[in-house]
C-alpha cells in the first residue's frame, strides 16, 4: 500500500524523531522515502542549517537500513510545496511532527498539521513525540470505530508499524467523539471542545493522528 513515503522535517528535534517512524515504516513496506524540508522565507540561517543537519542524519540512517531515500530542500510555502511534491511524486503517506505551540493553542484549527491533514491528497500521519528515548513502542493502542469506511488502511498502517517495531497492537472500541473529530468545525470546537486537542495534550506517550486517504 505504501510505496512512497514523505517525511516533512524542520529545524526541531521532534520532527527528526517523528521522521524515524517514517524511516521504520519505509523499511517495513519496502517504500521509497522522501525527506523533505521546505524552508519558510522568514527562517533564520541557523534554523536552516539545523534542519539540513537533521536531513543529513536521517538520510544516513535511511541508507544504513537499506532504504531508497531522497532529500528535498526548498524554500517557499511548506503546505503548498509539500502538496505539489505529493502530487508529482505520487506520495502515499506524509509524516509530520506537531509542534508545542500546536498543542498549546486553544484551537487546533489553523495549524500547519491540520492543514496538512485536510489538504493533502494522500494519507497523513501527524506525530506528537512525547518520549525521545523510547522510539521503539512495545504496545500500540489503536482506537477503532464500527462503520468507519477507512478501517482497512488504518489496520494496515497499524499492522505495518507494529511489524517495524515488533510491537503488540491493542485495538479498542472508541467512543464516537474521538475518531473523526479532527474534521470538527471551528464553531463546534469552540462550543464542545476538541477531543483531538485533549488527546494531544494529555496522552503520556507518542501519539500518531492518522488520516487515511479518502
Amino acid at each position: 500500500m505504501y510505496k512512497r513515503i514523505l517525511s516533512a522535517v524542520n529545524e526541531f528535534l521532534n520532527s527528526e524523531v517523528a521522521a524515524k517512524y517514517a524511516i521504520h515504516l519505509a523499511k517495513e513496506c519496502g517504500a521509497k522515502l522522501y525527506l523533505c524540508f521546505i524552508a519558510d522565507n522568514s527562517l533564520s540561517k541557523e534554523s536552516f542549517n539545523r534542519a539540513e543537519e537533521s536531513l543529513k542524519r536521517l538520510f544516513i540512517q535511511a541508507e544504513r537500513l537499506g532504504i531508497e531515500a531522497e532529500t528535498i530542500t526548498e524554500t517557499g510555502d511548506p503546505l503548498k510545496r509539500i502538496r505539489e511534491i505529493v502530487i508529482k511524486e505520487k506520495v502515499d503517506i506524509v509524516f509530520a511532527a506537531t509542534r508545542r505551540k500546536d498543542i498549546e493553542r486553544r484551537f487546533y484549527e489553523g495549524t500547519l498539521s491540520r492543514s496538512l491533514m485536510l489538504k493533502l491528497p494522500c494519507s497523513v500521519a501527524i506525530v506528537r513525540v512525547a518520549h525521545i528515548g523510547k522510539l521503539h513502542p512495545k504496545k500500540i493502542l489503536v482506537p477503532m470505530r464500527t462503520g468507519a469506511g477507512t478501517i482497512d488502511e488504518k489496520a494496515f498502517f497499524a499492522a505495518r508499524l507494529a511489524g517495524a517495531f515488533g510491537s503488540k497492537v491493542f485495538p479498542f472500541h472508541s467512543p464516537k467523539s474521538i475518531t473523526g473529530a479532527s474534521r470538527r468545525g471551528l464553531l463546534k470546537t469552540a462550543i464542545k471542545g476538541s477531543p483531538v486537542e485533549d488527546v494531544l495534550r494529555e496522552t503520556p506517550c507518542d501519539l500518531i493522528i492518522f488520516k487515511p486517504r479518502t
Partner: protein
Amino acid sequence: MKIQSLPAEEVLKHLVVPEDGLHQKAAERRLSEFGPNEIKEVKKKSLLKKLTEQFTHFLAILLWVGAFFSFLSEYLHPGEGMLTLGFAIVGVIFINAGFTFIQEHRAEKALAALRKMLPASVRVLRGGEEREVLSADIVPGDIIFISEGDRVPADARIIQASGIMMNNAPLTGESEPVPRTSGSFEGEFIESPNIAFAGTTVISGSAKAVVFATGMSTEFGRIAHLTGAVEPGLSPLQKEIIKVTRIVAAIATLMGVFFFALGFFIGRSFWENFIFAVGIIVANVPEGLLPTVTLSLAMGSQRMAKRRALIKTLTSVETLGSVSVICTDKTGTLTQNKMEVKRVWTASPPRHPLIKEGSVGNSSHDMLMKISQLCNNAKSVDGKYTGDPTEIALLKKAVETTGELKAERISEIPFDSERKRMTTINKVISAGAEGLSTLNSQLLTSSFTAFTKGAFETVLPLCSNVLMNGIVAPLDDAMRREISGAHDTMTGKGLRVLAFAYKEIEESYKLKVKSEKLELESDLTFVGLIGLEDPPRPEVPEAIKKCREAGIRIIMFTGDNSRTAEAIAREIGLVKEAPVIVEGRDFIRMTDRELRGALDNKEVIFSRMSPKHKMRVVSILKGEGERVAVTGDGVNDAPALKMADIGIAMGLSGTDVAKEAADMILLDDNFATIVNAIEEGRAVYENIRKFVSYIFSSNIPEIIPYLAYAIFRIPLPLTIMQILAVDLGTDMLPALALGAEKPSPGVMKRPPRGPKERLLNFPTLSRAYLFLGPIEAAAGLFGFFYVLNSGGWKWGEALASDNTLYMQATTACLTAIVISQAGNIFACRSMRESAFSIGFFTNRLIFIGMAVELILQLFIVYHPWGNAVFGTHPIGFRIWFMLAIFGISLFAAEELRKYFVRRYSVV
C-alpha cells in the same frame, strides 16, 4: 531506538547533543519544544463547575421550580405566605448543595506530594560550563551530574558511572539500593541499570547522564498521570442517595400534578390547587436528608479516628461498609515488620536439622554469626539499630551470640533484586566474646575474607565446599540434598531463609570489572542457613476470622516466595484449603481472562509481586462487581489506591504520596484496624437506613392532611411552613442521634450488601409509609379535629388562616406529629431487635435529640417569633398529654411488629 541498548558513546549522537552539552540557545529551543520539566495536573472539572452541579441536579431543579412558582404566586396572589415559602425552598437548595459539596470535594494533594519528590535545581553541562539550573528548565539532551544525596530531576541515560548506587523505591517499591552502570542493556527499559529515573535518589557514588525524558514523559510522570487521571467515581452511598432523591422527586411530582388536576376536577380554585400541589411536593421531599447524611458520615469518621482509622473523604465512611474484597500487603500490615531470627541450621555432626541458637563452641555456628554481622549494612548506634529489618535481625542475633566484631570493609558487591545476594570483603581486626573457635582466630590473622549472604537458590550453586565443625569438606550431592531439605523445612514453617557462605582470599579484589566479581563469587564454602520470621500481628487471626464471618474475601500481596507466603497465610488463618498462588513472573504472562479465573477462587495469594501489579488486580476485581479495598504505602501504590473503592495507606510507613492518594489512613498500620473500620462503615449504613426510615415516617402525616383538605374540604390541617418546621427543624437532631447508634451485634455476621441492595428498599419504605406514617397521620388529624371540635367548629365551616382556633388546631396537628416522632426515634433505633434488648440508654444522643426536638416545638408553639414564622398559636398542656398517648402507642406498635418479625423471620 531504545536508549538503554545504545552504547554510552552513541547516546549523545542519537539525542543530537554536542560533547560539551547543549548550548543555551539550543536548550531554550528544546524548552519551547518539549515544555518545562514539571508534573502537571490532569485536566479535571473545575471547582466552580463542581459547585454549580450541586444546584442543577434533578432534585435541585425540582426545588428551583417550586421556589419559582412560590415567588410567582406571591406576586400574583400575595398574602398566602408564598414569599416565605419561596425563600425557605431556596434556603433548602443552598443547604443541600453546601452539604453535598462538603461530602464530595477533597482538595487533590497527591500531585503536590509527588512534585516534592523532584529536586529544585540540578547541575548541568551547558556550552562546556558546569552550572546549576532549575529542575523545571531541564530539557531532553541536557547532560546532568548527580551524586550522593541528589534526587534525579528527569529520566536520564547514564554515560559515566562512579560506584553509583540509587534508591529506586518510588518506582519499584524496593528500598534496597541498586547499582547503576553506563554499559548498554538489552532488557526492559524499566529494569535497565543504565537509566536514572526521575524522583529516585542517589545513595552513594556519582554519575554523568543525558536526559531523554522530562515532566510527564518520565516514568515518574506516568505515575503522576495515573494518580491524577483516575476519577474515583460516585461512591455506592452517593449513587443510592441519587436514586432515593429521584424516586422521591418523581413521587412528589406525580402526586403534585395528580392532586392539582384532581382539585380542578372537583371544582377548587387555581390558587387552592396550586398551594396544595406545592405543599404536596414540599411534604414529599425529605429536605433534611442530605445534611443529615453528611453529618452522620462526619460522626462516623470521628468514631473511626478513635479506632485508629483516619478517613479522608466522608463518603468513604459508608463505602467501607460495602467492601467485599480486601487486597492487603503482608509485610507491616498482616505482620509486625520486625524480623526475628527463629532457626539456624549448619551442617555439623551430630547432624541435627535445627540446632539451638547461641550454642557456643560450634564453629560453623560461630562463622554463621560472623557472616551475619559483617556481611551486613545495618548499623547499631548507642544500642539503637537502623537499616533493613532483615539485616537488623541478623545483626542483633550475631552481636548477642558472638559479641561485636570490628572489621574493615574493603569492598562490596551490593545486593540487588536480580542477583538476590550480597558479598563483602572484610579484614577482621578484633574478636568479641570469649570462646571463639580456632578457625576464627586463624581468620583474625588472615588478610581478607569474602562473606556472602543471600537467597538460598542463588548462593548454594556458587558453593563447592561446606564447613562442617571446623573442617572444610567438598560439597557433594548428598549434602546438597540435605541442605535443600533443611531449607524446605524452614520455608514450610513460613520463615524467610537466607544462605551464608564465605571464601578466604589472598588479596583484596578491586571489584571494578565483572570478571573479578564472578571469580570472587565462586567456589565458596557453604556455612549454614538462617530462618527469619516476621511475626504476624497478634490481632490479625481474629480480624481475619471476623472478615470470614462477614463474607469478606482477603487477598494477600507479598514480595516473598510462595512457600513462605502460604505458610504465613495458614498461620494467620487466611487460607485453610489449597490456595491458588500466583507468582509475579506468571502474573505478567497471564491474560485478563486467566487472571479473572484465578481470582474466582476462594483463596488466592499473590507472591513475588511488585506494587505496579496491584492496579491490574484491582481493576479486574472492580470489573467483576466487587467493592475493593486495597492497602499501599509506596509512591507506585498511588494509582491502585486511587482506583480502588477504598484506598488504604499506612500511616506509619507510608509515603506522603500514598497518604494523599488514599481514602483512609491506618494510624497504626494494622490490618485489624481495617476490619474495625469496616464494622463502623456497616453500622453507618444501617444508621443511615434508620434515620431514612425515621425521616420518611413523617412524610405520611404531612401528606394525609393535604389529601384530607383536598378531598373533604376541611381547613388545611398543616401549613407548608409547619411541614418545613418538621423536616428541617425538629426532625434533624433526633435523626442525627440515630446516626450515632453503635453497630448492631450481627453487623459483621452478614455478607456485604450486594450491589443491587437499595438504601430505600420495600421493607424500609413500607415500614415508614404504611405502618409508622399512618399512625402519625392519625395522631395529627386527631389533634387537629380535637381542637377544632373543642372550639365549636362545624364541619364545612371555612376558617381564615389567621383565625386563632384554626392556628391552634394546626399547632395541635404539628405537635402530634412531633410527639409521635419522639416515640418513633426509639422505634427506629433497630430494625428487628427490641428497643429494650439493645439497651435503652446506650445512646445518650437520642435523649439529647429528643429534648432538643421538644424544646424546639415548645418554641414554635409558645414563643411569639415561632408563632409569627410558623403560623402557630399556644395550646393547652392537656393537649400535649393526650397526644403523648400516640407517641407511646407508636412505640408499642413497632415493638409488636419487631416481635412478629423476629418470631416469624419476616424481613
